[in-house]
């Protein structure tokens, strides 16, 4: 059985000078790292972890930004046999107090023994720690020694078994940070094999170009582990740089003859709307063979906008593809067939809402355009189930369940929620969908998670923040997501009850809510509605019914 260490050792011995990663920076020249450079740098971290007495299977949290240190610290943990987990870095808008609280909540469940960060961020990390918690060391990047040749057989990673946990992946917010997806070597490698086949990877010709953050499964698995463990060169752009200069993605694809990229749906719209001709003069996108839309609901309109914007630069229509993926299956569950654009299905909107059926519209009925996420990849079985757990026929909407040889080992240190996630050996996704002609269409969510620009946001975390605002009472606010055509993703909406009747006072309260949520969460909150007491619909158990309140909100704003 193979582990990450075995694969890295093989690259190191057989093709040390092969290009592994090309790092791009906002103002400096690109930096190319061979496998030898990558693993020598990683070994410096592995030696540091060893000196600090970090043991096999102990967790190391990495709080580092785009750059060599993040790469070395991650692969160093793998070489050493520790379990790396990448935590998002503090952003300009986020309150440092909340960041420390989030870190403390990660520490409380994941129990890392060390945290790696920059010297200038060390105080922030130390302030989040408490006496008696699991963290023994804060490792500062400038204390790590020089790059050196790794002795693979002596490193702890060599003693890992294929079924051992190799890494953790978290989503954001208090809830997400307390739910680390633990993946084994075997699960990741099974995923890479099956998924690699479905996208026909060619290690001699492919070049992956990505701006995705590495704490996210699409960034970490498809756009980081897949290239590095398969021997495909990876061109890595900083996510912060891309947001300010989205055209750099096109320039990089053109410069390095990029062939493969993964993007969340909003990025198609973002690129189409914000990239100007003067930024991409002379750019050639004809090498781009597959661009995969994944990690939030896929929209045909977004593909159209992207294609229209870049077809004159050599972009091929059939390059635009889709996948349905989740961290619990390591990454991909389904993938569209690369032969042609993903199937598009026109369905009757009323039957969809009222009868949970996906049927072609009858005379004059309002139609909805659905885009296929493709077929299950070879190692994954996908079922669509009714409430009793029976398979539903084609074109009937049900809950998506899956089984594979690349499932998570469990939510780290959370046997309680791991057990609840499965039913009769099937992982119950919480997503709704239907099959038509053997293709899976993902049509909605049972779980109340909101997906903003590919990031999973738990509404309960947002509501907890809203309750902290003076003037809002606990239990008197509700958060949900609505799809915004213009941005191609969901926007978070907060509805909060208040006794205030004066309009100016209501505006002020709405503003306080916006600001508090924005600086304390991963989202920038815009839509806040202040309503009178008893507006919010409650369930029989007294909780706010998010779906019912969303419908009520949409009805009111439509008037």
């Amino acid at each position, binding site marked *: 059985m193979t582990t990450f260490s075995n694969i890295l050792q093989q690259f190191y011995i057989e093709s040390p000078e092969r290009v592994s990663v090309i790092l791009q920076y*906002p*103002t400096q020249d690109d930096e190319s790292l061979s496998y030898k450079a990558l693993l020598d740098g990683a070994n410096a971290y592995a030696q540091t972890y060893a000196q600090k007495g970090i043991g096999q299977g102990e967790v190391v949290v990495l709080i580092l930004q785009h750059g060599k240190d993040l790469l070395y610290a991650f692969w160093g943990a793998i070489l050493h046999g520790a379990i790396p987990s990448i935590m998002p870095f503090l*952003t*300009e*808008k*986020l309150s440092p107090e909340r960041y420390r609280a989030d870190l403390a909540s990660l520490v409380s469940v994941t129990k890392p023994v060390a945290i790696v960060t920059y010297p200038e961020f060390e105080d922030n990390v130390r302030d989040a720690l408490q006496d008696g918690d699991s963290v023994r060391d804060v490792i500062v990047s400038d204390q790590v020694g020089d790059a050196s040749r790794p002795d693979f057989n002596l490193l702890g990673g060599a003693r890992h078994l294929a079924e051992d946990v190799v890494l953790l992946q978290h989503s954001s917010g208090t809830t997400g940070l307390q739910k680390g997806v633990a993946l084994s070597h075997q699960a990741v490698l099974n995923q890479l094999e099956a998924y690699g086949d479905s996208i026909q990877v060619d290690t001699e010709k492919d070049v992956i170009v990505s701006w995705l953050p590495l704490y996210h499964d699409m960034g970490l698995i498809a756009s980081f582990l897949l290239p590095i463990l398969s021997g495909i060169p990876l061109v890595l752009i900083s996510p*912060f*740089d891309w*947001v*300010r*200069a*989205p055209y750099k993605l096109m320039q990089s694809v053109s410069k390095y003859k990029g062939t493969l990229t993964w993007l969340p749906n909003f990025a198609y719209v*973002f690129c189409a709307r*914000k990239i*100007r001709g003067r930024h991409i003069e002379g750019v050639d996108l004809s090498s781009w063979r597959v661009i995969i839309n994944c990690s939030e609901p896929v929209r045909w309109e977004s593909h159209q906008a992207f294609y229209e914007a870049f077809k004159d630069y050599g972009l091929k229509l059939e390059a635009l593809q889709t996948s349905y993926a989740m961290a619990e299956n390591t990454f991909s569950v389904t993938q569209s067939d690369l032969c042609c654009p993903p199937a598009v299905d026109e369905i009757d909107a009323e039957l969809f809402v009222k009868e949970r059926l996906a049927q072609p519209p009858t005379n004059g009925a309002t139609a909805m355009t659905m885009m296929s996420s493709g077929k299950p990849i070879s190692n994954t079985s996908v079922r669509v189930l009714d409430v009793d757990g029976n398979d539903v026929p084609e074109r009937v909407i049900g809950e998506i369940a899956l089984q594979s040889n690349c499932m998570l080992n469990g939510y780290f240190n959370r046997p309680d929620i791991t057990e609840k996630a499965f039913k009769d050996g099937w992982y119950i996704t919480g997503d709704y969908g239907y099959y038509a002609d053997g293709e899976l269409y993902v049509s909605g969510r049972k779980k109340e998670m909101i997906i903003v*620009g590919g990031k999973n946001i738990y509404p309960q975390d947002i509501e907890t923040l809203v309750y902290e605002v003076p003037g809002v009472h606990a239990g008197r606010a509700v958060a949900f997501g609505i799809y915004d055509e213009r*941005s191609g993703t969901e926007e978070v909406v907060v509805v909060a009850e208040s006794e205030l009747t004066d309009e100016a006072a209501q*505006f002020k309260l709405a503003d306080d809510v*916006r*600001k508090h949520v*924005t*600086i304390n969460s991963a989202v*920038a909150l*815009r*839509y806040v509605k202040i309503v009178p007491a008893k507006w919010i619909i409650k369930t029989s158990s007294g909780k706010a019914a998010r779906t019912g309140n969303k419908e009520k909100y949409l009805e009111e704003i439509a008037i």
Partner: protein
Amino acid sequence: MTEIISTLKEFIADEILKQAGRAIAADEALISSGLIDSFSLMDLALFVEDTFDVRIEDTELNADTFDSLEELAELIQSRQ
């Protein structure tokens, strides 16, 4: 200068914050406060380019270059 500020204010309130008529003080922090998120910064930069015929480089889209209406208006004026 006042005119630039009021044009910017209107765009930010209507298009970015989706709250037409919202008051924004000339010295109110926009970026460091999270009022304008990174995705919307691009919109603002494109609007500035089209409306005032000046260029803002992508490396300048941060709170160090401008964080308030006043500072952005000054930047625009200095380049016109």
